[in-house]
C-alpha cells in the first residue's frame, strides 16, 4: 500500500508542478528553455570527453564553461526579471537584459580566447 501511495503521490506531485508551471509568464518560460538548452549542450560535451579523453583540455573547459556560464547568466536574468521577486522591484527588465547581453559577450570573448 505504501508503494502504491508513493507512486500516486509522485504522480500528483508531478501534475501539480506542471499546472503551476503553466502559470508562469512567457518570458520566464523562454529563459527556462534557454537554460535547459545550454545545460543539455554542456552534458553532451561531457559525454564526448568521457568517450575520447580530455586531450585538448582547454577546449573542453572552454566549451563546457561557455554553456554553464551562459546558463548562470540566464538564471540571473530570470531572477531579476521575475515580477514576483520583491528585491528587484525597481530594476527595469530592459536594464537586466542589457546586463545579460553584455556579460554574455564578455564571457564569450574569454571563451573564444581560451578555446585555442
Amino acid at each position, binding site marked *: 500500500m505504501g508503494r502504491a501511495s508513493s507512486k500516486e503521490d509522485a504522480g500528483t506531485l508531478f501534475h501539480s508542478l506542471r499546472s503551476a508551471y503553466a502559470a508562469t509568464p512567457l518570458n520566464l518560460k523562454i529563459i527556462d528553455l534557454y537554460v535547459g538548452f545550454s545545460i543539455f*549542450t554542456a552534458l553532451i560535451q561531457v559525454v564526448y570527453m568521457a568517450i575520447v579523453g580530455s586531450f585538448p583540455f582547454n577546449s573542453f573547459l572552454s566549451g563546457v564553461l561557455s554553456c554553464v556560464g551562459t546558463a548562470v547568466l540566464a538564471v540571473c536574468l530570470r531572477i531579476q526579471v521575475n515580477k514576483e521577486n520583491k528585491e528587484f522591484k525597481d530594476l527595469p527588465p530592459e536594464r537586466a537584459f542589457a546586463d545579460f547581453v553584455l556579460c554574455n559577450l564578455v564571457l564569450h*570573448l574569454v571563451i573564444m580566447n581560451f578555446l585555442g
Partner: protein
Amino acid sequence: MRFGLFNLIPLGQTHAITAHSKDCEDFPQKGRISLTYTEMARSLAGFLVLVLVLVPVVSICEGASLFQPISDSHRSAALELFTLDHGSFESLEETYEALRTFQVLGMEKKPDVTAAACRFISETVGSSSSTPKDLLYALKANSIAECKIHEKASKGIISSLNAAVRGASSLLDFYYSVGGLVLIKDQSSKADIHLADAEGVFRSVKAFSQSDGRWRYSSNNPESSAFAAGIALETLAGIVSLASSELDQSLINTLKNDISKLFDSIEKYDDGTLYFNDKLVDGHDYQGPLSTTSSVLRGLTAFAASTTGNLNLPGDKILGLAKFFLGIGVPGDAKDFFYQIDALACLESNRVSIPLILSLPSTVLSLTKKDSLKVRVTTVFGSNAPPLAVKLVGAFSSGSKDASLVESQELKFDQVSGLHILNDLPESIDVGSYTFVFEVVLQEPEDEKVYVTGSQTKVPIFVTGLIKIENSEIVILDSDLGSIESQKKLDLAKKNAASLSANHLQKLRLSFQLTTPRGHAFKPHQAFLKLRHESEVEHIFVVGNSGKQFELVLNFLGLVEKFFYLSGKYDMELTVGDAAMENSLLVAIGHIELDLPEAPEKAPRPPPQPVDPYSRYGPKAEITHIFRAPEKRPPQELSLAFLGLTILPLLGFLIGLLRLGVNMKNFPTKPVPATFGVLFHVGIGAVLLLYVFFWLKLDLFQTLKILGFLGVFLVFVGHGVLSHLAAASAKLKSA
C-alpha cells in the same frame, strides 16, 4: 730584458760566433750532447713537467755575467740594417751613421753607398740654403766618404758657419756650427780656421750648464739632460781645438768638475753595468739610456782628447759603461746599432781609460773531454790587449756560500792563440754549475794609466761529465718477509727486456748507484720510473736517494687503488737526466705482469685515454631527437557525430520557442526605435561574427580593437532601443 744570451749557460748551442775559428771545432761535439738532451727533453715533456732544464746562473753572487766583445755577428747585422732605400739614404744623419758604422767595424766601403753619400753631400754642400745641422752631418759623412769639395763651396761653408756661431743662441746651434768648423778645418786645404772669440763662445756654451752636471738646451727651456751634457762637452772640445790661443785653465778645470758631477748621477744595473739616463719628461724629446750614454761618452772622449791633463775619472766607471754597451748584444734597430758602435769606438781608443774585457769562448766545460779553461782579454772590439796575466782567484759552487774550491793560480798565456789557458780543471771541480772569479793583472805599470781592467770578474761556468751508473738491479720482494722472489740485474746503457711478475702482496725494488767522474755522489734533476699499462694508463714514480745509492720501493698493496685495479702487463721505463750529465738516459727496463685484485663497485675508473689525440676534437655522435608522440585523436566520424549531437539542443530550443508561442509584438514600430532595434541585433550578430574570426585568424589585440568600436556602437543603439521599450512598458503600466 737586459740579460741577453750571454748570461744564460747555453749547452754549447747559442754562442756568438767568435773570430777565433780554432774554438769552433769544439762546437759540433757540444752540440751533440745538447741534442741528446733535447731529444730526451722532447720525450720527457710528453708526460711530465720538466723540473729544471738550465741551472739558473745568476744565483747567489750578484754580477756573475759574461760579456763578449764585438764580433762578426755584428758585421753581418750591420750589412742588413744599413741598407739604401731606393738608392739613397733618408737623411744626412743616416748617411753619416751608416758610413761611421761600417768604418768602425772595419768593413770595406761599398761603392754604391759611397756614391750615394757623395751625391747627398755635394748637394748639401753646394746649396746655400743648407742649415748648419745639414752641413755638420754632411761634413761628418764626408770625413769618412772623402768626396772632394770645391774651394768655392768650402769657402761658402766656412763663412756661413762663422755667421752661425756668432748668431747662435741655443746649445744645438753652437754644436752644429762649431762641429762643422772643426770638420771643415780637417777636410779643406785651408788649415787656418780659427774661432774669433773662442773664450766668449766657450763661456756662452758654459752658461747652459747646471750644478748637477747636466746641461740645458737653451736659456728659455728649463729642462736639462745628460744627453745635452754630452753634446755640450763635444762642442766645448771643438772650441778648445779651434781656439787660436790657450784658453784660461780655470775654465777647463770647472768643466772637469762638471764632468765629475755628471758621473755622480750615473745609474747601475745588477750585473755591474753603468749607464746614463734622463727622466722622461716629454716623450717627443726623450732620449733613451743608449743614446744618452753614447752622447756622454762621445763628449767625454772628445773633451779628453782636446785637453791636456787628467780627467780623474774612476776607471771602473768606464768599464761599467763598456759593459753596458756590450751587454746589449746585436741591436735590431739601425739607430741603436750606431749608438752602440760609436760609443764603443770612443772606448776603444781614448785618453781617459781604455776598458779591457775578459771573455770566455766557451763557458761549458766537459770533464770527459778534458776541456781546458780558456780565457781571453781584449778591448771592446776584440783587439789585442797589452801584456797581462789572468789569475783564477776562486771558484764557488752555485748555490753555496762556502769557501773557494780552488786556490789562486795563474793561467798560462798561449802566444799563438792569444788565450789564457788552464789546462786541467782542478780535482775539486766536479760536474755542476760554478762561479769562477778571475783577476786581470797588467804587467807594465805604465799601462795602468791607459787601460782599466776591473778588480774581479765573476763568470758563470758549467761543468759536464759522464756519470757512472752501477749496480743497477730490479728485485721483487715479498711484502711481509722481505725475501727476494726474483731478481734481475740491469744494464742501463742499453734497452733491457727483463720480464717480471708480481701480485699485490709483493714489493718491487729498483736500485742503482750514480757516481760523478770525481767519485762523489750525484743527484740528478730527474730520476723517474714510469709504469705504463697496456691500456695506455701511465704512472710515474720518483726515485729517491741517500748519497750515491738510488732506490725506489713500490709496495703494490698500497698502490692497488692508484693503479685503478688494472692487472696485466706494465712496461717499465727509467729516466735519469740532468744538465750536467752527458749520458742522460731514457731506457726501457722491461715489463712486469701485475696481478691485482678485482675492482670493487665504487672504485675510481682510470681516466679515458684518447685513442687518437685529435679524436677529442672531432665531431661527436649525432643526436636524434625523439619528439613527443602526438596524442591519439578520436576518429573523425565520431567527432562529426558529436558535432551533430551538439546542434540538437539548439534545434530543441528553437522548436520549444515555437511551441511556447513566441511573438515579435513588442518590437517597436516607430522608425527610429525600429532602426535601433535592428541595429542592436545586427550589432550583436557582428560581435559574434567577430568572435568567430577571432577564433579563426585574428589575435586578441585586433579583436579588442574592433570590439571596442562595436561595443561603443552596441551600447549606443542598445540604450536607444531598450530605453524606448522601457518607456513604453512604463507608460503601459501607469496607464
